[in-house]
């Protein structure tokens, strides 16, 4: 169905749409239980810009967004590219253990399969 938004030049991507009705924080809170530090993230993007798996599409900021939206299937594809090199953790200005977060996220996603 065509909507009014389709007539515009800037069509919002699905992943960029915030749908608070369908927000699913379940996985997010489970991950917070494992790595409480991720709540300190301020989305500065240092991690994403230094990422070794950047070319493969890996982006920790995106991971954080997807987590809050409960997009578990997309998360699975995205985090699969992380090689756990740990550069993101070393550059984080908020001392977030991003590496441990992705490691635990991979395990949580695997458990929920």
């Amino acid at each position, binding site marked *: 169905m065509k909507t009014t938004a389709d007539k515009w030049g800037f069509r919002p991507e699905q992943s960029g749409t915030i749908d608070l009705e369908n927000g699913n924080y379940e996985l997010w809170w489970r991950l917070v239980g494992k790595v409480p530090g991720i709540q300190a993230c301020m989305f500065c993007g240092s991690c994403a810009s230094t990422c*070794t*798996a950047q070319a493969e599409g890996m982006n920790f900021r995106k991971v954080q967004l997807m987590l809050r939206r409960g997009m578990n299937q997309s998360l699975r594809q995205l985090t699969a590219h992380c090689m*756990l*090199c740990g550069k993101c*953790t*070393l550059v984080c200005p908020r*001392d977030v*253990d991003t590496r441990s977060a992705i490691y635990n996220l991979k395990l949580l996603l*695997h458990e929920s399969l």
Partner: protein
Amino acid sequence: MSPYEHPLFVMPFMAGALFLGIYLPLIFARWLKNTSYNHLKIILVNLFSARTWSAIREVVSESLLHRRIFRFNKKLGYMHMSLAFGWFLLIVVGKFQTMLFTHDGLNQFYLPIFLKYFYPDGIPHTFEGIFFLTLMDLLLLFVLSGVALAWIKRLRSRFLGMKRTTKHILPDRLALAFLWLIFPFRWLAESVTAGIYDSGGFFTLYSGKALASILPLDLLFMPSWWAYSVALGGFFVLLPFSRYMHIFSEVGLIFLKHWGLKTGDRDNGYADFEINSCSRCGICTNVCQLSADAGIHHSQAVYFLKDMRYGTPDRATLENCFLCGRCSRECPVDIGIDYLRLKQRKQEVNAAAPPVPFRSNGSPASKCPDVLYFAGCMSHLTPSVIQAVRNVLSVAGVKFSMLDENGGICCGRPALQAGFADQAKAVIAHTREMIIRSGAKRVLVSCPICFKVLNEDYHLPVPVMHHSVYFNSLMVEHPGLFRRNSLRMSYHDPCDLGRGSGIYNQPREIISRIGHLVSSRHEREESLCCGGSLANLAISPAQRHIVTEAAYEHLTSKSPDYLITSCPLCKKTFSAGKREIAVLDISEVVELSMVQENTSGKVENPVRSVSRKDAKAPSLTIP
């Protein structure tokens, strides 16, 4: 009293010994049951070779004399030796002493253990009689001194060089209680007997006389022998379920090791021997920086091995470890702790990270001239290291190209250490392909993490060199290029380069050639971890920071001009925060010596003089 009456009090001892005699062969057979035909063949080939002799030598030096514990602390070594070697001698000498009375070796099994009960008078007037009485009393004193030290260790462990002792589980505590009672009860029983019969050696005779003056010895005679027998029997029954299982499994482990079996192979039972050989002596908890600095006391090797033995370790125990190798190195039983932990991690989490295909398929456009430089992820966070390496290579006239000019290439070791073995395998295959396609004659790496995995898992047809080793040989080839200065430098051995790959001398040779090497207490094999290790997946950033600060304080305690390391991750970790003493990579030190004339000694900004344009190397383009 005739020895053939079988008095009732020997029964607890006999029951315990019988239980042990049946249980031990059964459990050993169970561990060895899974041994494959190939492993059996390896064992058979080596069974009748010099390896068996070297195994026997190690059994004497480690299971009895405990030489490796002496290396850690002399008093602790004496404690372990007196209990193990002393007890062993008591049994052997006791057997010979018994033969004086029975005139043959085929006497009752329990006779040497309770000899004084059966022959309370002894034969004090012959040379052999006096000799054995004195010797046995000396040995008893020897063992008792060990027991006394063990008691002291429980109360004040620092007296024996232990900052902390292991938290024991119930079977260990019970077995310990019985073990601690065995020799005091033996002493009591022999003293009471000596006091009644006015016999015995220099030690038991006088302790017996002293006891006789305050106690009614006749009433104590049977109870003391009963107590000794019950303590022995109880210890034997508890032994297989407690840490004292190591007494026997360690012997098996040493033989299997010498016969050619390798650590971590669960299918040949070697791992079972390893896990059961841990005596929970606690030396690993004392050298662990997590315990000493960060207040983490649940994940050390001893607890990991304990959990492995009685079930499966939980993830908190498994993940909270730097894999720095300090405990493996100090372990008196030589258990492959890191290997076992890695294996277990793989078993637990491997399925969560299936290998994924790479979008970018590495295919270098240009052929690599001679040296292929692989900086690694961590060096990209410390660009000064990459610049220094390029500078040195350019000035020395080495033709090189860079594999990861734009980053994006991982060696695979971080995933491997986390336990994601399948994913790591895919990463390794991908990177290996790129290296081989470049046609390089030699691979130069800056990061010890990459260096270790390139050496061990890549199986490359060309040599892999760490820049500290390569630059050391460059300095020998081109001595004219480098100038000496008066800087005092302290060197930090990175875990994966030092303990992991055995490279200790080359970086030190470079430093000694350029300036003055300041030694520190924990160096070479005993080097500390910087706290940045990627292998730990559970430590909090704050705890990590404490470990780093402690290591930095230690390395800079002699106030050198620079703290030198050979690892970009160590440099990055140490550099975090305000530092009075700057941290440099060994490549930066080499670069520094090439370009600066040092009259003042200390150079403020060392890596900034050669024109960077000249040093720019042609890079491989990987679409």
